[in-house]
């Protein structure tokens, strides 16, 4: 079942993500893909995550598709201008990749090539607009295409941002520009998410709540200090601190969060960041 169909069916949808290797050894990438096969409805392939140069998302999506997976092609606007972005959208389509997550992208200085020239010719909203134009059979310059693609377009939003209003304004713009589904930045506060969804519901899009698996209390503290829009409450950090079996605890917390927020949205997006092997256990624990 495609992601589009899964979301349409009304079931609670689960997506996960994997990052391609830095290099051409795809063994681990394929192992992770195999771990998730049949367990989740789609798998995002990250695009030079954190501005770190590596194997591309398009190649990753293609590999996953060959193995029968349902990939979500993540695209950022950091490294390509509108010519390359539109071309890659066409490339994705001919490879049978329909799901595209349109992102702005982290700034180059956050990654491993701070010397690079940042692009940002388009941004997340105009990338969505570009994809929509291509679907109409023309490109951003208004030139006609020989054969038009069809996509299932997604975008990202940060429900834990403070203030959240700018995020909601941009979310509405993304929805207007063509985003049909949203995968959120991680959120650990169901109350906050509930308030966010009250507003987000108005945009008529499908929302998958983001969960980053917490490895340790130290990691949670690190995210609180350094990652925008993520706030892990003290109770969860203490829980993690006190737990004997950290791996078990991280699974338990993720499953609990999913269950607490399940009725507020249409699915969950689990970002395991290297702990892909734990995703099936999280789903089991959450009863999914």
């Amino acid at each position: 079942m495609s992601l589009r169909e899964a979301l349409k069916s009304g079931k609670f949808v689960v997506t996960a993500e994997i990052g391609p290797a830095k290099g051409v050894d795809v063994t681990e990438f394929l192992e992770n893909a195999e771990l998730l096969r049949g367990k989740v409805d789609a798998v995002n392939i990250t695009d030079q995550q954190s501005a770190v140069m590596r194997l591309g998302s398009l190649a990753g999506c293609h590999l996953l598709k060959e193995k029968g997976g349902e990939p979500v092609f993540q695209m950022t606007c950091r490294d390509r201008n509108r010519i390359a972005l539109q071309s890659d959208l066409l490339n994705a389509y001919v490879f049978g990749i329909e799901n595209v997550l349109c992102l702005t992208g982290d700034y180059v200085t956050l990654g491993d090539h701070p010397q690079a020239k940042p692009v940002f010719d388009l941004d997340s909203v105009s990338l969505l607009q570009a994809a929509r134009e291509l679907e109409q059979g023309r490109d951003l310059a208004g030139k006609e295409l020989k054969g038009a693609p069809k996509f299932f377009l997604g975008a990202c939003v940060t429900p834990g941002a403070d203030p959240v209003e700018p995020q909601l304004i941009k979310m509405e713009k993304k929805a207007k520009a063509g985003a049909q589904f949203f995968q959120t930045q991680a959120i650990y506060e169901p109350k906050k998410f509930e308030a966010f969804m009250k507003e987000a519901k108005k945009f008529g899009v499908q929302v998958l709540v983001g969960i980053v698996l917490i490895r340790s209390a130290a990691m949670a503290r690190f995210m609180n200090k350094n990652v925008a829009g993520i706030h892990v409450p003290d109770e969860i950090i203490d829980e993690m601190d006190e737990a004997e079996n950290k791996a078990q605890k991280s699974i338990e917390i993720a499953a609990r969060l999913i269950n607490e927020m399940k009725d507020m949205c249409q699915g969950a997006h689990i970002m395991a960041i290297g702990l892909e092997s734990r995703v099936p256990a999280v789903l089991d624990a959450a009863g999914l």
Partner: protein
Amino acid sequence: MIISELKPFPEVLGYLEGEKKIFLVGCKGCAEVCHTGDEPQVLEMKQQLEQEGKSVTGYCVVDFLCDKALVKIRLLPHEAEIDAADSLLIMTCGIGVQATSAVVNKLSHPACNTINAGGARGEWRGSERCRECGDCVLDLTGGICPLTACTKGLINGPCGGAKDGRCEVEPEVRECGWHLIYERLKKLGRLDKMKAMPPPKDYGKMQPPKELRSTIMWALEQEETKV
């Protein structure tokens, strides 16, 4: 010198949609030389706006509109006229629009596109404010330039990287430009501007012909090479 050109009138009129009373601000600096913001252009704009049914509450031509401190002083005698206006229309470069926005609590619309700064930064020298994009979007952003204030030069709102109002890049020294834009528009009660959907930016306008990107100095240099 900072080279600006007047935006097409329909574009300017579009910015003023829903607004009836406008206060005009011109500039006797570079905009006088470019014939974009001197008194005759301001009066012509006044007439054009009145023909479209707008009322102009007053106008002021400031010697250097890019000098934030000066703008404040020069606008002071016009306080009542500015108070009576729905918004201001600024007929000069992007720096002048931003200087006005910074001292007036009303939306300031740009009437010009800034094409080239010829190495100048205007008289408000604290920081880089205009990147001479040739297609000024200050109307949508509360008079804060998203090309210079936002590290990524985004025109559609903030990325997900801002934390506590600071940019994901150099947070110690950089505020998030979109946080500033949001706060300003919110204060002005004009968050609708942030919801607008501009078309993808035309960066071709950032590369106008050489003579437009250059100053009179360049023209002189050209002559010099001939002798």
